[in-house]
């Protein structure tokens, strides 16, 4: 088990943010053949893999308040941001690398505006469409090219159909490209009253049956399905939990020093995001405060790798500086060293990707909507 002090010697420093990782983090990523993508609001998205010498490869760009992340593991990443949902596509073919050695190059291809809806988790459906957690309107929604969002599902206890965050719907567990469970901080039905239920009124809901399958959670976030099991980051206690949706039992598997939020899996390992509560904010005054005191630990901002077989925190990556939140973390399978194009550099304008075969006669007809 790693301790939070056995860092690699040389921390990375980027824009005043210091990145520290446990000694085994890079080799773990290498062994698992995965990379990580996550955001630290208000302005960064990160991709972490390994470089040619086995060292951590850290890539970051500016993106406005990255919240939920999802990937289909086939080259698409969906990123919910402050007002928009961006769809990134990997522009490299299998085996291709960029001149500087990146084996994935994600390009922000299409953006849809969703407005100020306090987007949280996002999901990619089997047909390629998206689902987003619209916290301000308390619903699951789809983005659209015609409107900001299309409401698709409301919690069964919520009779309001307008703006106003009553229950703080925040998390979405997808399974086989379909929505399965959501998390809410409470079942309140009046605007903002979810704040009163932060300590122990959180629930998980089966989206298909509308049944509440687990209760008594403390600010649950990031429900995820993994190998047939339901998991949740019980952020208010700092615990990663396994949930039995039949019995409603919630089994803490591991404690992580922080407000746990953002969850992904690699085999038996859980990759969990962690944010820093601050006295008097939304994430303080929770059982987590007592748990941190009991463990004699401070809360950290970063990523924890937890072995779900033992509950041990085996690797970590911490971010120090003037940020304190991390909303989601996503594992990119079969990826060593990813990169992405940001919105502010010259590449987004100058990098052109197209099929260089000259178009046939029918291409123009097709574009014109002409059927011959």
């Amino acid at each position: 088990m790693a301790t939070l002090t056995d860092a690699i010697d040389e921390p990375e420093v980027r824009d005043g943010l210091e990145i520290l990782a446990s000694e085994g983090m890079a080799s773990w990523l290498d062994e698992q053949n995965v990379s990580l993508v996550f955001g630290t609001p208000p302005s960064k998205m990160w991709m972490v893999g390994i470089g040619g010498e086995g060292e951590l490869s850290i890539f970051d760009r500016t993106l406005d308040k990255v919240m939920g992340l999802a990937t289909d593991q086939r080259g698409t990443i969906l990123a919910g941001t402050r007002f928009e949902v961006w769809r990134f596509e990997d522009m490299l073919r299998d085996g291709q690398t960029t001149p500087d050695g990146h084996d994935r190059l994600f390009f922000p291809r299409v953006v849809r505006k969703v407005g100020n809806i306090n987007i949280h988790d996002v999901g990619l459906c089997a047909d390629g469409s998206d689902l987003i957690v619209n916290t301000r309107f308390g619903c699951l929604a789809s983005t659209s090219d015609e409107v900001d969002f299309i409401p698709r599902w409301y919690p069964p206890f919520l009779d309001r159909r307008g703006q106003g965050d009553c229950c703080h719907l925040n998390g979405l567990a997808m399974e086989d490209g379909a929505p399965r469970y959501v998390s809410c901080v409470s079942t309140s039905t009046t605007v903002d009253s979810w704040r009163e239920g932060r300590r122990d009124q959180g629930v998980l809901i089966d989206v298909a049956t509308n049944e509440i399958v687990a209760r008594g959670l403390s600010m649950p976030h990031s429900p995820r399905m993994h190998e047939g099991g339901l998991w949740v980051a019980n952020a208010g206690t700092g615990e990663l939990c396994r949930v039995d949706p039949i019995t409603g039992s919630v089994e803490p598997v591991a404690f992580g020093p922080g407000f746990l939020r953002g969850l992904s899996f690699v085999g038996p390992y859980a990759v969990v995001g962690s944010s820093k509560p601050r006295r008097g904010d939304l994430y303080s005054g929770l059982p987590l405060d007592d748990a941190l005191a009991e463990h004699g630990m401070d809360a950290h901002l970063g990523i924890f790798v937890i072995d779900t077989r033992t509950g041990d925190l085996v690797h970590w990556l911490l971010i120090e500086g003037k940020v304190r939140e991390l909303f989601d973390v996503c594992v990119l399978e079969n990826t060593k060293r990813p990169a992405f194009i940001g919105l502010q550099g010259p590449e987004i304008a100058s990098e052109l990707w197209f099929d260089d075969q000259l178009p046939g006669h029918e291409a123009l007809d097709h574009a014109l909507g002409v059927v011959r």
Partner: protein
Amino acid sequence: MAGLVELLPMPPLPTKGFLDALGSTRSTLIVVEASRVWSLSVAASGELLSTVATIDGAVAATWCAERLWISAGFQLWSFSEVERRSGGVPRPSFLPQEAFSIGQLDVTDLVPGGEKPIICAALLDCLARAHDNLSIEPVWVPPWIDSFRPETRSYLTGATVGPDGRVVITSAAMTTEPKGWLPSLEGSGVVVDRDGSVLASGLSLPRQPRYVGDDLVIIESAAGTVRQVGGGEVTPISTLPGVLSSAAALDEQHLLVGHGAASRATVTGLSGGMNPEGDALCDRITLIAIPSGRVVGELVFEGYSGPITSMTLIPGRMGAEVVSPAGGAANALCAVGDFRPLF
């Protein structure tokens, strides 16, 4: 105490003839002018209604598939219509909804297509459309182009689709040399159809061909001439001051032509058309009757302005406004679709 003055672009000034003609369409005219997108229509009282949105890098606009599309910087934005109440009065608002990262293609024109507009991409000498996974999908290249290279060889300047489905394209030259169009700017321009047949040649930077009714009309930027193309002939029908930078059909009898000072043109160093003595040569839109060439009206943009690079009509909508993707209003306004259950 210092006074605070909000600096807003001066609304353009119409002549009566312009107001009457625009008013009769009961539509909103969108004008793209140096990153400003003007929405212009005529109120029941006969006054010009104008709003302006700042959209960084906006160069071209078109109306396609019941949406407004604007090419701006590296993106192609679509704007969807919602009804917004302003002072109790409903007005059609066009909110930015979706954008494709097409790259900096030097877009010279947008043409209504099927579900998305066709992009006239001068950088790659092709017509193309936005793609979900790539920058663009090229859909047409002129016959003299045998491969894609980002180097603006012949400089495609516009395209249009006729009432009979005929596709017409303008090009500054027919060359395969990198930037080969520049040295031969005057007199090398052509109008071709999709098969590459040359409909007109010897033109000086022809641009944005348009059908006005059944009449094919082109503007010849560097000469300041409006020409009708048909029956194997190219007939000059009007000469306007300055460099002609954009064109749009207002209805089946009238063509709108954007023009202005050569020094502000996208391509500088052009002689442009006649510059009558004493004419301050503000950027302006002149409305001419087709095929007579008679000037019917004018809309003058006073003060500093940039080239008018594109115009399009939003049919059947009076008093429409465009909301900028970069402004706070786009994020504060939320168009909520009808509930569509998951299961």
